[in-house]
């Protein structure tokens, strides 16, 4: 299973990329764990996760078709 992740704002500075492909994860908790291993700076970064354009607050299942996004604090306006 591969999950495509899109990354915005200051999180791009943390991951160095605005998209990532992460393999072998089926929940957002697993995804976060993998990301933190790959990018230790994420541990102190503030961000939320959206799955299919909805902010999630709990561990959520993800599939090949899920659209996962890493969203740092909003600063529009």
């Amino acid at each position, binding site marked *: 299973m591969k999950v495509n992740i899109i990354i*915005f704002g200051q999180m791009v500075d943390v991951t160095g990329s605005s998209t990532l492909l992460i393999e072998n994860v089926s929940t957002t908790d697993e995804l976060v764990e993998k990301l933190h291993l790959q990018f230790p700076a994420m541990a102190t970064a503030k961000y939320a996760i959206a799955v299919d*354009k909805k902010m999630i607050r709990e561990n959520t299942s993800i599939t090949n078709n899920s659209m996962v*996004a890493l969203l740092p604090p909003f*600063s*529009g*306006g």
Partner: protein
Amino acid sequence: MTDRKPKNIFVQGAIAAGFVAASIQKHSTQTSIGAHSIFLGQVRNDVINNKKVVAIYYTTYEEMALEKMHQIRQDIFTKYPLTCMHVYHSLGKILAGEISLFVFTSSAHRKAAIDACEETVERIKAELPVWGKELFQDESYQWKENK
């Protein structure tokens, strides 16, 4: 959420004063309107650690932002007796002194227009996935934070 396609609110570059004027002018045929409330966000020349902000570069997660804005719009129309609401947000590089957000609500009476405008601005700042990168003169930057 209805099936209706969310309206686009994003414009490339700054919002011109003339664009605001054209928006106002269009409402002169809607003679049931008694009050317009307009909010404009302008890029500030803040000085941070002795460095001056010369511009903000805005990006968004457009698909999600438009869905969220559609929901905000529906909530506001449910809550307030508005005649209409228009929202425009800039993307790309907006120079200090230029306008990056334009929220425009109209109603028969002032209370609804004013309250709806303020609530829409607050929700946009809190809920829309938009990010502002403050660009300094020396080409360094920092990420904007909303208060």
